[in-house]
């Protein structure tokens, strides 16, 4: 992972942020709610990075990522409940299953273009959700409650939030580094070329189907990984909560807000939007009833209309302008 290391070489400030993130929980020991928000931010950083790969780089608008997330969550939870298998193994089984599903699904529908692919993924996600809602073997609408076995490293369950904080931080970092590596790699170049002009990419001898599948499967892996850990954290999963299409939609909005097809975009988006959503929900959700959604909608609309490249491009431009000013 030599390229991955470049990530750290790039700027010392990244190091500083990392250290700050590692030390942060020490100050937040008595603020589990803030920790919870941090964890949700990390969850969405990872999920948004996963979406960024298939949507931002390869240009396929997928509304099915939450299904892979749910597959991860369900697989490990089922294994834990029925076979008493540690989620550390369940995690890989979940990733494998999600990968297979992504492969089969992608093989069938990745040739669809633009909206068609998007609508097909919505339909598939709905089918899976409806089947799970009616499938007694996986708890149907009852959902699955994880057996409490805390605290235990083996069962990946703690009563404190700290270990979860570090685990989700790790996952967020891993997925970001993965996307960074891909961004700088040949595959990243191919993904972007597919997004811009798929036939053109084919004419350059790129096996577009293979690379789209690759992006889709890797994306599914990350989602499934996060799904497993999320189930361990939230301790209860049901189709209506973890197969909610809003999860995918949120990922899309986060990526769009931060900057499509950039490594920093999903991070920025999640760091800004998730706490903002939490804040508006708490400030307004109770009294305002729906105002938070309206504000959310307005922000997205403004971004889309005036700054479709996302917040990251603003920052980059500011940086450039500042440099220019300093030079002159």
């Amino acid at each position: 992972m030599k390229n991955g290391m470049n990530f750290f070489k790039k700027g010392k400030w990244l190091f500083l942020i990392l250290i700050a993130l590692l030390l942060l929980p020490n100050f937040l020991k008595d603020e589990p709610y803030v920790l919870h928000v941090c964890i949700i931010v990390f969850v969405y950083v990872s999920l948004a990075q996963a979406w960024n790969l298939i949507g931002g780089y390869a240009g396929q608008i997928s509304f099915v990522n939450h299904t892979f997330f749910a597959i991860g969550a369900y697989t490990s939870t089922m294994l834990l409940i029925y076979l008493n298998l540690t989620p550390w193994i369940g995690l890989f089984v979940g990733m494998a299953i999600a990968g297979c599903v992504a492969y089969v699904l992608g093989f069938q529908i990745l040739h669809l273009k633009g909206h068609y692919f998007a609508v097909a993924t919505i339909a598939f996600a709905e089918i899976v959700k409806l089947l799970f809602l009616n499938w007694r073997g996986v708890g149907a609408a009852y959902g699955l409650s994880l057996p409490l076995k805390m605290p235990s490293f083996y069962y990946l369950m703690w009563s404190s939030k700290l270990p979860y904080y570090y685990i989700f931080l790790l996952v967020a970092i891993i997925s970001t580094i993965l996307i960074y590596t891909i961004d700088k790699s040949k595959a990243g170049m191919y993904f972007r070329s597919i997004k811009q002009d798929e036939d053109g990419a084919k004419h350059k001898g790129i096996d577009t189907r293979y690379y789209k599948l690759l992006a889709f499967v890797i994306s599914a892996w990350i989602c499934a990984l996060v799904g497993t850990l999320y189930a361990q954290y939230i301790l209860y999963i049901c189709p209506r909560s973890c197969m909610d299409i809003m999860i995918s939609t949120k990922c899309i909005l986060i990526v769009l807000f931060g900057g499509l097809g950039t490594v920093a975009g999903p991070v920025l988006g999640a760091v800004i939007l998730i706490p903002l959503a939490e804040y508006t929900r708490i400030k307004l959700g109770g009294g305002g009833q729906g105002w938070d959604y309206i504000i959310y909608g307005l922000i997205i609309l403004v971004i889309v209309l005036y700054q479709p490249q996302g917040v990251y491009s603003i920052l980059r431009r500011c940086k450039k302008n500042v440099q220019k000013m300093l030079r002159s």
Partner: protein
Amino acid sequence: MDLVYLILQVIINGILIGGVYALIAVGLSLIWGVMEIVNFAHGDYLMAAAFFSFIFWSYMGLDPLISLPLVVVIFLFIGFGTQKFVMKRLIDSPTLITIAATFALSLIIRYGFFVVFKPDYRVIRDPLLQGSLHISSISIPIAKMVTLLIAIITMILLFSFLKYTKKGRAIRATAQDREVAKSLGVNVEQIFLITWGLGIACVGIAGAMLSTFYYVFPLMGVTFVLIAFASVTLGGFGSVHGAIFGGLAIGLIQQFGGTFVSPALKDVFVFGVFILVLIFKPKGFFGKY
């Protein structure tokens, strides 16, 4: 009830609800076909139209059937407004951007109504259209029947507009190839404006008719929008008869699946057939105009 009657009833139910879906889908299809924008806020325009009908009924005592022209005109202008103030800037944007924009619109409309009208369930009571026709043991709800009728009229009008008027032909030309249309001197901006107006007016009709037999609720759009997507894609986007075909097909699949196999899985059949069609016939059964 013996099997023949049952099957007949299911077919009638399917066609009636299919007519509703078709009416909802046709506006979506128009916008989708001409501008290549999937309007995720479509269901919320539907909801808004139903609310307008409800408001006319509760404050002015106008039956939805009577206030229908009013609602249509209002929604025509709402459509113009949407294009003028929001979508105009996004004409050549990537798919994702338009999806996000319409999604944001959807949130704003949905929760705007939510804030103003509070999440109560409302029903227009004793509308002109109520009760059912009973032919031996088969029953045909009048409200849905009239909706189907209006759907058919709307589509005939829309179809003739697209086929026989100058503007209609310009719309079709734009749908087929925007650049060529531009080079032929078609005012594409204006065409987009008309398209949005017509598309939203169609969903206005659908919403007004829906309010005669469905409850009115700020979040009701979500229920219909996925079905509308499926109808449009099944029929092939950008075609009027495609939307009719898609709506009816989905209505029938839903009713047959729901009645004879399992109601819980009725939408699984809908989406299942839909995905299969996408895989094997990605352009739907009818292409563009």
